[in-house]
């Protein structure tokens, strides 16, 4: 049960403003990313559009770089940094432990975004959305991107709040959404260390000209230490939505968390071998960790099945209990609600 006593209407508004600020940046980035995606589609269709777009978009790779950065990095990161603390706070029924830290995080990330965007738009950082030597970006682009990592790490405040509640309310089980939020940021705090090390010690000195070259193999290995877990940084918030919000819309209680909490832990742990397996595609690297990879990959498969099972349970427990059989309940879901239909069919 959440600590409702500590919840105030003003806290809800403050959390909503923080979430809205992150969401606005995320949606602007998504608009830019989708637009550049259309340019690529037109090029594949035989329409040469880039000459008319200069100097904003100068080439296919310039467009792909902006598309990848805006969609895969900016949109996802800002959305998650708005969505997860908001859901965490609501799930616990308590305000964030330190909203000022959350706002500092937002502004640091935004400043880093502006710093990274200038060379990207100016075609001085056309290196896709990866950090892959010998592709070399202008130093503000790398430095600005680096600012997102500590910004994301600052969202460890959910952990502080959960620890406080664990001390004060030991007999209460934490809500699943709060637990999954904590796991998401705990995983990301560990996973982002590889990219941070690559940027700080290899790419930024190289881009500034302080060193003559860099070790491409080591840099790519460090990149994939972060590069594969970032997929789960994107997916875990989607799991939060599927496991906690969708079942509620189907009419089920999501308070039974015993078997799902360990799954969240597995999601954060099993991606580690995948990081090493991705790097084995790099020429010169070894095949370490290969045996774990199929397990890690196939872990993706049961997720939709588990969520559908949750909705079957919703059939049994919820207000739509009149539905019978294994499939009838499916048609009784509130499909006219876009927040449900989008998540189910995508």
């Amino acid at each position: 049960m959440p600590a409702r006593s500590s919840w105030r209407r003003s806290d809800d508004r403050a959390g909503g403003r923080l979430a809205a600020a992150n969401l606005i940046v995320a949606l602007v980035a998504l608009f830019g990313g989708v637009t550049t995606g259309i340019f690529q589609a037109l090029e594949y269709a035989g329409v040469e559009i880039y000459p008319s777009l200069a100097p904003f978009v100068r080439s296919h790779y310039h467009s792909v770089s902006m598309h990848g950065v805006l969609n895969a990095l900016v949109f996802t990161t800002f959305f998650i940094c708005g969505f997860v603390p908001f859901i965490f706070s609501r799930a616990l029924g308590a305000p964030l432990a330190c909203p000022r830290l959350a706002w500092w995080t937002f502004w640091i990330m935004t400043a880093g975004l502006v710093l990274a965007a200038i060379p990207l738009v100016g075609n001085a950082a056309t290196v896709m959305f990866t950090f892959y030597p010998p592709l070399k970006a202008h130093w503000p682009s790398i430095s600005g991107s680096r600012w997102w990592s500590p910004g994301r790490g600052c969202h460890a405040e959910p952990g502080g709040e959960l620890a406080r509640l664990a001390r004060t309310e030991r007999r209460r089980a934490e809500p699943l959404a709060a637990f999954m939020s904590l796991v998401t940021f705990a995983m990301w705090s560990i996973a982002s260390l590889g990219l941070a090390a690559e940027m700080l010690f290899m790419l930024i000195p190289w881009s500034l000209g302080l060193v003559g070259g860099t070790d491409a193999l080591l840099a790519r290995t460090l990149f994939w230490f972060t590069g594969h877990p970032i997929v789960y940084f994107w997916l875990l918030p989607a799991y939060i939505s599927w496991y906690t919000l969708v079942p509620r819309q189907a009419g089920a209680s999501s308070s039974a968390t015993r078997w799902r909490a360990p799954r969240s832990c597995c999601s954060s742990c099993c991606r580690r071998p995948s990081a090493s397996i991705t790097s084995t595609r790099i020429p010169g690297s070894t095949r370490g960790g290969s045996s774990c990879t199929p397990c890690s990959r196939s872990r993706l498969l049961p997720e939709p099945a588990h969520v559908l099972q949750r909705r079957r349970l919703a059939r049994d427990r919820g207000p739509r209990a009149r539905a019978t059989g294994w499939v009838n309940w499916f048609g009784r879901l509130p499909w006219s609600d876009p927040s449900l239909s989008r998540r189910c069919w995508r």
Partner: protein
Amino acid sequence: MILFAFGGVGGLINASFNVNMVVHNTAYIVGHLHLTVGTAVTLTFMGSATGWFRTSPGARCGAARSRSSRSGCGSGEC
């Protein structure tokens, strides 16, 4: 969620050393990424935002708000 299942099945090919040698550095990888992230994650985020902001104070989303307040993630209800 349904398309995400296809993305997950496609990931098994990436996880297989022998088959991956065929598809690596091809548009298959791009397709896999878009099937998992471009559909599952992005549209789940959009759906979440639709349901999530309707529960916020001051938000108005027509008649759907009343449905959401009964079934969505309200304060302390997740």
